[in-house]
C-alpha cells in the first residue's frame, strides 16, 4: 500500500479474487475499504474491467430483484411529534398541563367578571397562582399517573436532571399564561405570583426527595387550598397571617423559601435516582 491508500495493483488483484494474496493483506485491505470511499470507487471500477464474471453476476441478481424492489413501497413515517418533545414532556403530563391552562383561564375569567367579594379582597388568580405549576410537577414523576414510570425509573437519565427538565417544561407552559393574565387584568405584578410559584415548585421538589414528588406536590396544593383559598371564599377575606405573605413587601419570605427549596434539592440530588 502506498501512503494512505491501497495501490491500484492490490485492488485489481482483490477484484479478480486472486487466490495468491496473503490472508493478512486481504484483511487489511478490507478493513481499509470499509472506511475509504475513494478506494471503494476504485474497486467498483476494477470489478467492471477486471472481473466481468462478477459484474455479470451482480447485474443478473439486480435484474431479478428489481421487480420486487419496485413493488415495495416505503411505509410512510408516522412520526407526528419531533424528537425533542419527548425529552422534555411525557404524554402522561399533557392532560395535566392542559388542565392547568384551563384553570388559569377560568381564574382570569372569574377575575374579570365575578363580584369582587367572592374571594374577598384577593384576586382569584393571585390565590391559585402559587400552586398552579404543582399539578404538572405532580404528573412529571409519578408511578400512578405515568404508565412508563417503571421503565423510566431504571434508566440512566432517571433522577434529578430528568425531573428538572420536566419541571422546566411545566413552568414554560404555566408561567406565560400567568404573565399574560396578570398583565391583562393589571391586578398583580409579576413578582407577586412568580416568586410564590417558583417557591412552591422548589419546595415540592425538595419534599419530593423524601416522600415522592407526586405526594409532595399534592400535599402542598391541598395545604394551600385549606389554608388560603377555602377560608377566603368562606369568610370573604384571607386569614390575616396569610394576607401578610401575599403582600408585595413580603417577597423576601418567598425568596427565602425558594432559596431553601433549591438548597435542599441540591443537597439531596442523589436521592432522586431511586424515588
Amino acid at each position: 500500500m502506498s501512503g494512505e491508500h491501497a495501490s491500484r495493483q492490490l485492488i485489481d488483484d482483490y477484484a479478480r479474487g486472486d487466490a495468491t494474496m496473503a490472508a493478512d493483506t486481504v484483511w487489511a485491505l478490507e478493513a481499509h475499504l470499509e472506511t475509504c470511499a475513494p478506494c471503494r470507487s476504485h474497486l467498483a471500477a476494477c470489478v467492471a474491467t477486471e472481473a466481468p464474471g462478477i459484474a455479470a453476476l451482480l447485474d443478473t441478481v439486480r435484474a431479478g430483484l428489481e421487480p420486487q424492489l419496485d413493488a415495495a413501497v416505503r411505509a410512510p413515517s408516522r412520526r407526528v411529534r419531533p424528537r425533542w418533545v419527548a425529552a422534555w414532556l411525557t404524554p402522561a403530563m399533557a392532560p395535566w398541563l392542559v388542565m392547568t391552562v384551563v384553570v388559569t383561564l377560568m381564574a382570569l375569567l372569574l377575575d374579570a367578571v365575578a363580584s369582587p367579594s367572592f374571594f374577598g379582597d384577593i384576586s382569584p388568580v393571585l390565590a391559585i397562582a402559587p400552586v398552579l405549576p404543582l399539578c404538572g410537577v405532580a404528573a412529571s414523576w409519578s408511578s400512578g399517573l405515568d404508565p412508563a414510570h417503571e421503565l423510566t425509573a431504571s434508566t440512566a437519565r432517571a433522577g434529578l436532571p430528568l425531573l428538572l427538565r420536566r419541571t422546566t417544561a411545566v413552568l414554560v407552559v404555566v408561567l406565560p399564561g400567568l404573565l399574560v393574565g396578570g398583565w391583562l387584568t393589571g391586578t398583580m405584578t409579576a413578582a407577586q405570583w412568580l416568586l410564590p410559584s417558583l417557591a412552591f415548585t422548589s419546595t415540592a421538589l425538595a419534599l419530593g426527595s423524601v416522600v415522592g414528588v407526586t405526594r409532595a406536590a399534592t400535599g402542598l396544593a391541598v395545604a394551600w387550598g385549606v389554608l388560603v383559598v377555602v377560608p377566603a371564599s368562606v369568610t370573604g377575606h384571607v386569614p390575616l397571617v396569610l394576607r401578610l405573605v401575599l403582600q408585595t413587601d413580603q417577597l423576601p419570605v418567598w425568596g427565602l423559601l425558594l432559596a431553601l427549596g433549591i438548597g435542599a434539592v441540591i443537597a439531596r440530588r442523589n436521592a432522586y435516582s431511586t424515588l
Partner: protein
Amino acid sequence: MTPTTSAADTAPNTYAWEIRAGGLRVRVGRKKMAVDGLDLSLGTGTHGLLGPNGAGKTTLIRTLATVLRPTEGELELLGTSVGAMVDHRALRRRIGYLPQDFGYYKRFTVREFVEYMAWLKEVPKPHVPAAVQRAVERVGLADRADHRMKTLSGGMVRRAGIAQAIVNDPAVLLLDEPTVGLDPAQRLRFRELLQELGRDTCVVVSTHLVEDVAAACSDVVLFADGRLVFQGTPDDLAAAGSPDHPGDSPLERGYSALLQGSGRQGGTW
C-alpha cells in the same frame, strides 16, 4: 466512520461476577421482606430464576434493576455497589430491564418507543438510529416498526419491550416473565435470542415455566420465600428429583423435590 470499539469496550473487567449479593434483604411495603437474606453470584450466561408465585422474584429483579433500594445487605452490580444516595447513572447505562407489566405510551410507534428508551438510557446520539433498528430487527418487529404501540398484539408489545431492554447492549439484562403472551413459535425464537444474548451478557430471566429454563438457560436459580433454594445447571435440577415427586418432566420433578425439601410449599396450590 465512528470507531466500533472504545477503550471502555476493551478494558478488562474489574469484577468477578456481574451480579453479587450478600445477605441481601429488600422490604416491600411496611412489613414484608420479599427478599430475605439472599446470597447469590451470577456471571455471564443465561440464568433462569424459578420460584412459586410470591417467592419474591419480581422484587429481586426490580432491586437488580436499581428501581428498589436494598434494605440491608450488600449488592454489587458490575463491580459497583448499589445503595441509597448513590449516583447509579454509569451503572444504569449498562442495564437492560423488562418489567413484568410494563407500561408504555400508546400513541408512540414502536420505533419512537425504543428510540425514547435509548435516549433515556443515554445511548450516544449518533448510535441511536442503528441501535434501535438492530434491536427491533432482533425481536422480529421490523415490519411493524412504524406502527403505533396501541395497534400491536400482546405478544408484539412484549417483543417491543424486549427490544427496548436490549437497545443499549446491556451487560446485565433483567427480564421479568418475558415469555408471557408469546405464542409457541415466538417462544422458540425468543429462546434462541436468549441463548445468543447469554454468550456475552449476564441475562436473568424470571419465569415459572420450567421448560423455558430447560431450553434456554445455562444456569437455574431456584428461589422461594425470599431465599435461595438451589443454584446449578438444568441437569443438576433434573437430578434432584425422583419419579415419586410430582411433575411431568425431570425438571418439574426436580423443581418440586427441591421446594418440598426446603419446606416452603404452602397451601393446596
